[in-house]
């Protein structure tokens, strides 16, 4: 049983997706999704324990040894991602129970859960695979399901956001495919370990350079690295709340993992960072992203949009850590992947509660929130402090690690940029606090939540009313994430242990 875990990690949510379609009740579909999420988390925990000492688990799909067959690879660099996915999936199951009921028409709920299972399958599949083409296939599974899920947002602009994401995301996926093709042309293999063995033999080849550039640009689109971020604000802010939580917490993170995997274990530090100026390019782009993301976030009028722009800045910080290509830089990047997932998950989950209670996520509607919904507001403030990086939050821990990594590499300018972006974060978080605490609430009667389809049909008989009560499961999810974001700031041993392990595997030069 234990030896089958790598395959089960992907297969359980996959089979659950098909099961959700077969079931006749929405509650059954929810149960199945919850089961898939819990199973993913348990599997991830067991796998983490198994590779904790730096072991690498290889699983041969179909019993064919790589490179003829496809292998799954589990090591410290991807168990972090698996754990995050498991945790966020469980949160989504708890949180979605009520949130989906309100935001999605009943007849679509079963398929909605099926699509969530598929999103999970795709993201897990990217994380565990040891084959470059297989990564593309699972990337497309996760992308397709997220396009459909985003399009189900309540407003009509969700459709436009989903379409824009579909077009640019597919171009990104195809760029990845071109890059894989170029690498295949000069090595004859698709297996990551085999690629890593054979690529040094063709070092300096212009086709390899092309492969690096196309794979990285393709993944950068999926990571929403500035200036390829255009799809992100619309997609994250218009998606149904639970989809927003999952995507904001782990969507881009999985692409960042894939990026690190290609950079460090497939092409290797020598090709990417020594021979080519990719590291410098990443640092420039990451710095710009930190400034632009945080800067634009300050001017947003909508809470979710503000959070989405803030994500662009935070992704910039994570890739900066990877661009340093040092053990401490990669470790800091991984630490921030973990912490930012928790923080953004909490904030998007809180935004979903606001949507339910206030019928809107505009900053104006949040006036006086501190008095009317003190707990939710408290969670928003705690997580917001994490975005700025105030001690003792988890955000502080990862920014501190990042600052140390930058100092170690003498990147003073980038350190200044990072501090500036933290100041900007203080501005946008400050705006939320100012609105929520110091402004008086507007009149809220008669506001409704509308499904975009119903709105366009003219009449809206099925429009959902603003809810009086916050569901316990939703509030609990937000509280759990907010508490975790403080706990990991006070006792960072678990996340930093994971991050250090990942950095060791990636920068230590061992095979994938």
């Amino acid at each position, binding site marked *: 049983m234990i030896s089958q875990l790598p395959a089960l990690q992907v297969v359980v949510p996959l089979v659950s997706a098909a099961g959700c379609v077969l079931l006749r009740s929405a509650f059954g579909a929810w149960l199945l999704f919850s089961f898939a999420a819990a199973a993913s988390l348990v599997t991830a925990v067991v796998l983490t324990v198994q590779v904790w000492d730096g072991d690498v688990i290889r699983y041969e799909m179909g019993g064919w040894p790589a490179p003829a067959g496809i292998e799954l690879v589990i090591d410290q660099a991807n168990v972090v991602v698996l754990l995050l996915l498991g945790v966020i999936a469980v949160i989504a199951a708890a949180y979605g129970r009520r949130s989906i009921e309100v935001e999605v028409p009943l007849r679509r709920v079963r398929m909605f859960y099926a699509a969530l299972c598929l999103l999970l399958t795709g993201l897990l599949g990217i994380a565990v695979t040891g084959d470059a*083409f297989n990564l*593309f*296939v699972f990337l*497309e599974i996760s992308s*397709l399901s997220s*396009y*459909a899920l985003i*399009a189900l947002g309540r407003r*009509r*602009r969700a*459709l*436009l956001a*989903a*379409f*824009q994401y*579909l*077009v640019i995301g*597919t*171009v990104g*996926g*195809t760029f990845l*495919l*071109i890059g894989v*093709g170029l690498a*295949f*042309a000069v090595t004859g293999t*698709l297996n990551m370990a085999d690629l890593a063995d054979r690529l040094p033999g063709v070092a300096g080849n212009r086709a390899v350079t092309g492969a690096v550039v196309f794979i990285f640009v393709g993944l950068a689109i999926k990571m929403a690295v500035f200036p390829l971020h255009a799809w992100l604000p619309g997609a994250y802010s218009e998606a149904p709340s639970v989809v927003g939580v999952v995507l904001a917490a782990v969507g881009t993170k999985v692409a960042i993992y894939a990026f690190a995997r290609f950079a460090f274990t497939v092409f290797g530090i020598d090709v990417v960072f020594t021979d080519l100026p990719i590291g410098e390019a990443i640092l420039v782009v990451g710095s710009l992203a930190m400034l632009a993301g945080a800067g634009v976030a300050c001017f947003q009028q909508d809470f979710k949009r503000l959070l989405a722009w803030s994500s662009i800045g935070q992704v910039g910080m994570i890739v900066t850590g990877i661009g340093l290509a040092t053990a401490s830089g990669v470790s800091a990047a991984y630490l921030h992947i973990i912490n930012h997932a928790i923080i953004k998950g909490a904030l998007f989950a809180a935004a979903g509660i606001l949507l339910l209670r206030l019928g809107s996520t505009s900053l104006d509607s949040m006036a006086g929130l501190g008095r009317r919904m003190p707990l939710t507001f408290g969670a928003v403030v705690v997580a917001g402090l994490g975005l700025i990086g105030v001690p003792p939050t988890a955000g502080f821990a990862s920014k501190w690690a990042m600052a140390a990594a930058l100092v170690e590499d003498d990147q003073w300018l980038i350190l200044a940029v990072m501090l500036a972006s933290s100041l900007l974060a203080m501005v946008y978080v400050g705006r939320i606090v100012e609105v929520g605490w110091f402004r008086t609430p507007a009149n809220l009667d008669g506001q409704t939540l509308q499904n*975009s*389809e119903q709105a*366009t049909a003219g009449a809206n008989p099925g429009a959902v009313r603003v809810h009086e009560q916050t569901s316990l499961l939703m509030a609990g999810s937000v509280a759990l994430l907010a508490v975790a974001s403080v706990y990991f700031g006070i006792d960072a041993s678990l996340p930093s242990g994971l991050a250090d392990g990942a950095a060791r595997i990636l920068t230590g030069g061992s095979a994938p």
Partner: protein
Amino acid sequence: MTATHYTYWIIFALMMIGLYAVMSHGNLVKKLIGLNIFQVAVFMFFISLGRVDGGSPPIITEGIEVYSHPLPHVLILTAIVVGVATTSVGVAIAIRIYEAYGTVEEDNALARDAAEEAAE
């Protein structure tokens, strides 16, 4: 480099036309058609990698010794399916956009959203 590289270059030109069509056109359906051209050109690139001079289709037959490489064919079979799956979801979203906005021109739809925002 040999003379056979012209195949690659024509394929790259097709990719360029597709990519240009995706980005320059504001019509959503046209964007999807452009995306198709772009992807099909990438498929041709992969298939041309598996080709061997004087080879036969990789179906083992007695008396034939040289076969083209089957792996690129397998990959592209999968990629074609991925492509049409994307197209179908894209078409569904485009139809919904038309129902919601009354247009499939991206710029018009964006303008209508902006007008809506200004009215609020």
